[in-house]
């Protein structure tokens, strides 16, 4: 077997795959945050909790109702997205005329409540969720072993990200969304129901988080803190990519996952801080983010 800079390929590609998996979750979650921030001007601090809720609802569907992984992948985003719509209608929509900070505090509080309730009920030791039988096992690619489920996570995330990008950038519906992000008053004066669009957009962003949660359930253990741990990194990803940039959040999400994986191979001590170091550098050099437009 060949070696790369003294690193066995198994280790290198293994870490790169792990990085790509993490990157998949960064990408879907930062995409949802970017879509929500773009239209609502709200920094959705409940995003991590909604991702965690996705994993939990998938677990509950399986254990209480016997509904398996594939149905969960469809039903959980709908259910959690609907929950998001209720939150937006009842609470978040009352804050649009106030400073950003209020939306942030509200969603942060909601995150703490959701996490607290689930911690109370299920503890923090983590619940197992097994890989669906169709995706058990793996492929030996010669230079590395690829577990089927992990390959699926990367493919499914890429698909969802690209589909979302396509809808927003290339369709009529997306044009409404982009226009309302720029000038909601004028879009309303054309006869378009902007408040309803805002509600549905929030629901969609939350559904994306829940989808990521279902994907994550078999990879990580289902745990009330799983979102809180991840969301801090995701916020750094959003800052690096540029607030509100759709393509930026996707590319940065996958890219930073890979960077993190590489760091684990070459300098493991730095792997947990590398993203934040990049964030600090980006903020100093290009405060609007790599893909951000300065307003």
């Amino acid at each position, binding site marked *: 077997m060949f070696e790369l800079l003294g690193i066995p390929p198994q280790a290198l590609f293994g870490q790169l795959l792990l990085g790509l998996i993490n990157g998949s979750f960064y990408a879907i979650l930062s995409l949802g945050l970017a879509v929500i921030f773009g239209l609502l001007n709200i920094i959705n601090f409940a995003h991590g909790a909604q991702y965690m809720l996705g994993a939990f609802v998938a677990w509950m569907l399986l254990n209480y109702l016997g509904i398996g992984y594939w149905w969960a992948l469809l039903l959980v985003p709908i259910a959690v997205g609907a929950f998001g719509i209720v939150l937006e209608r009842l609470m978040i929509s009352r804050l649009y005329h106030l400073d950003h900070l209020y939306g942030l505090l509200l969603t942060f509080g909601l995150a703490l409540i959701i996490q607290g309730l689930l911690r109370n009920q299920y503890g923090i030791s983590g619940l197992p969720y097994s890989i669906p039988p169709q995706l058990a096992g793996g492929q030996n690619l010669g230079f590395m072993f690829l577990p089927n489920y992990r390959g699926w996570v990367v493919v499914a995330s890429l698909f969802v990200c690209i589909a979302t990008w396509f809808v927003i950038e290339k369709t009529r519906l997306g*044009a*409404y969304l982009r226009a309302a992000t720029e000038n909601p008053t004028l879009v*309303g004066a054309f006869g378009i129901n902007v408040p309803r669009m805002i509600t549905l957009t929030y629901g969609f962003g939350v559904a994306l988080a829940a989808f990521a949660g279902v994907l994550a359930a078999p990879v990580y253990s289902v745990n009330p803190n799983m979102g809180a741990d991840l969301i801090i990194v995701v916020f750094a990803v959003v800052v690096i990519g540029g607030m509100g940039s759709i393509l930026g959040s996707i590319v940065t999400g996958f890219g930073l996952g890979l960077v993190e994986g590489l760091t684990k191979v070459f300098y493991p001590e730095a792997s947990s801080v590398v993203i934040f170091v990049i964030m600090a550098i980006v903020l100093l050099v290009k405060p609007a983010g790599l893909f951000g437009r300065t307003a």
Partner: protein
Amino acid sequence: MAEAAVAMKTAAASAPLLVVKDLQAWYGESHVLHGVTFDVRPGEVVTLLGRNGAGKTTTLKSIMGILPKRKGSVTFQGKELMHAPARYVAREGIAFCPEERGIFSSLSVEENLLLPPQVKPGGMSVEQIFELFPNLKERLSSQGTKLSGGEQQMLAIGRILRTGAKMLLLDEPTEGLAPVIIQQIGATIARLKQEGFTIVLVEQNFRFASTVADRHYVVEQGRVIDMIPNAELEENIGKIEAYLGV
């Protein structure tokens, strides 16, 4: 001449399409409109003339329902619109072209053109809009805000012609444009009038206004203080110059 006289007579005979009565409006705490009253008959082009800050733009925005704090009455085709949000006003068939043009930079020219939804049947087709503004056809895939000022204005007018709205509120469509473009906008307004559109035009360019309008309302300090038919312009030219301070 005879034709014009008949047209004027029928316009005068029909009931007003838009009636604005004692319209008051506020920006936050500051009281900007103190009772604007005027009406527009079907097929007419009417201007609101006045100095900067007189309340012309605010009047259009209040009719459109964009300003949240307002009082008085705005009826369109006999229907009271005072408590309706902007999207309902649009759906009744009133279209608004803002002073800053409101071209979306994250949308292509084509997306900008197709953005406003159809609210009534009988809007212009995209082909007809290209006939009015051939420049737009060449630039469909450009970013909306990459167009020249004149082309942006054409796009801003063009996109509301598709919607089927027959009442257009145009806020200073000639502002900052070259004379040859102003001429083109003037010809467009004349053409739209022929096609049966009813137009309220906010203008500071009085010369331009006099070439396209049937009647002029003079706005000062948040009120309509005078109305001058375009036919009686000559006699009143001194008065208007005094109003506008030119």
